[in-house]
């Protein structure tokens, strides 16, 4: 307990512990995002993530977006454990044949209204795994995709900015 208290006091509020420039960007975009989400979804946007064959770096960045530094949750974005609680499906990876059924089932389990976001170059069109014998490739052909977040992997700041741009233009 002593250690926890000491470190709690020493670390302080860490959401500003990144390079000042990036920090300002994230804060500004995040607050705008919060307003946009309030307006469109009432309070918050719930997201369910599905990995359809990613290398794991995309997951790692999504987890990073939830760390105390970026802390996506404070801007109204929540990652949920079940598709039944989700507004959006966030798909990573190039859709391995083995994941096709699971992907469709997860989507079907979500209540309407719902939309799909693809995360990372693989999820757009297979990326580096395009044309492989075991990759279905383009998720757009399988599910209605509303937004793509580019990168390999996209970093948390890009994720926040892409979501903001998307919600603004809706």
């Amino acid at each position, binding site marked *: *307990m*002593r*250690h*926890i208290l000491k*470190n*709690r006091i020493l*670390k302080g509020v*860490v959401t500003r*512990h*990144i*390079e000042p420039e990036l920090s300002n960007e994230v804060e500004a975009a995040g607050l705008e995002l919060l307003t946009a989400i309030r307006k469109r979804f009432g309070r918050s946007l719930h997201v369910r*993530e*599905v*990995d*359809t*064959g*990613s*290398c*794991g*770096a*995309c*997951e*790692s*960045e*999504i*987890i*990073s977006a939830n*760390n*105390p*530094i970026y802390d996506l949750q404070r801007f109204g974005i929540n*990652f949920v*454990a*079940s598709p039944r609680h989700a507004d959006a499906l966030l798909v990573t*990876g*190039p859709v*391995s*044949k*083995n*994941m*096709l*059924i*699971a992907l469709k089932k*997860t989507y079907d389990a979500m209540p309407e209204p719902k939309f799909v976001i693809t995360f990372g170059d*693989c999820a757009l069109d297979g*990326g*580096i*795994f395009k*044309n*492989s*014998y*075991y*990759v279905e490739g383009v998720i757009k052909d399988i599910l209605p995709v509303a937004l793509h977040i580019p990168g*390999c*992997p996209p*970093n948390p700041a890009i994720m926040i900015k892409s979501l903001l741009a998307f919600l603004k233009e809706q």
Partner: protein
Amino acid sequence: MDHPEIVSHIRDKFPGDRVSLDPHAYPDELRMHASPESFKGVCLELHKILSSPVMMLFALDERAKLNKFVINCVFADMKKSRWIIVSMDTPPDKACFDSLSKDIYSASLFEREIKEMFGIEPTGNPDPRRLNLHDEVWPQGNYPLRKDFVKMQDGPRGDYRFNRVEGSGVFEVPVGPVHAGIIGPGHFRFSVAGEPIINLETRFGFTHRGAEKLFEGRPYPEAVRISECISGDSAFAHSLAFINAAEKIVGVSVPAKAAYTRGILLELERMYNHVNDIGGIAIDVGFSFPAAYASIIKEAILQLNEKLTGSRYLKNVNLVGGVSIDIDETGKRALLESLGKIKRDIEELARMLEASVSFMDRVDTTGALRRKTAEDIGVVGLAARASGIPMDLRKYFPGIYKDAKFNMITQASGDVLARLRVRISESGESCRLIEEFARDLKEGEEINVVPELREGCAIGYTEGWRGPVLYWLKTDAGGSIERCKIVDPSFHNWQGLSYAVLGNIIPDFPVCNKSFDLSYSGNDL
């Protein structure tokens, strides 16, 4: 046992059979060719004298040129810092080889992989089920790693049969492929009687993307980029193992500065993953403050990576012949400064965990993998060291680690606490190594050389944070790839997890799983 001795020993054991040696092998490889009749015997003998699991076992399709398939089996001779490769030929019309799996457990999954990918029969393997090509979606008779495979042909599909534990009161709990967290897909099937787990069946392959086939026909620069996407959290270790093989083939010697830069980045990759797992173990028993603290440290390391290389996951750095980024004096200063802070934070993190009695109580004796079990099933890398097996390529194939006086870390108990302690100590050791390597970075030295392309085959290896990452590579004269076999340590270690959880309760599975933290995509390829 020395190499000439090993060879004469094998020749004495199999007198009727001319076990021949390949004179062109690299200094860290010993290649033997055996006949189909003695292949199994030679492998069993090597397994016994080297006490090495089967590190790799894979096939090559040489039908176009030589009208045969080739099977290669790789063992590690840690003491002599060499890889021992036994190969045999099998004719295309009756392609088969004697299965090793009844005697060497670690061969079993490799054999099933050879069977599904090439249609070569491991005669006597008790388990005919496929691994990555799921029966429900991939018709029988399609062998994608054969050279003449072009497109999937439709045909009958099958079903997958799970092993079952039967008896009154035994019930099954299936989990996955889609899990509750932000994590890769895999299927776990627990058989439980009362509370304790009595069997765990895993089924993977959900992230199979046909990666090995994608390498074929590509030149090095493209292929390195693919190797970075095999397992994203080990992007650097994978590209390093890949180019290690390529550099052996082209015969290039890497500038000193590139070697030290690689050492620094490999250790940074180890650190961010170890810290991530230390936090993960804490969160999986509900201890959230240290977990959040750890994720701040991880973010700091990722940002440091970006500052040094332009990539948070250290991609686009490795080249055949060197590295693409130069760590200059400013970079070095930034590195050492951040490293100092990171080191202090990791020490604080460890102190927080160790000061919590209830946390220590949860991880102590949980998910224990005994040394004997780990040896029998061929567990490697970090998990092996936590069970008391001295095995670290940085020690036994040292390279630049030799001058840095690398200190291998082991634990004896093989439980979650042991794996946690190995991670904590290794993070400290990594800090020290980075400081050592940074001292040897000289301003203005060259960082890469242009390789001459050549044909050949070689093993590339490196100790990633999970364990040994191995690549076996064969190229043609133009430097494009004919075959690339990848073995991520996860492929060996998922088996270890299945045994470590036995007798534990399902609610402890997440923490056991996290303490191994294996890669789905590295396993499934």
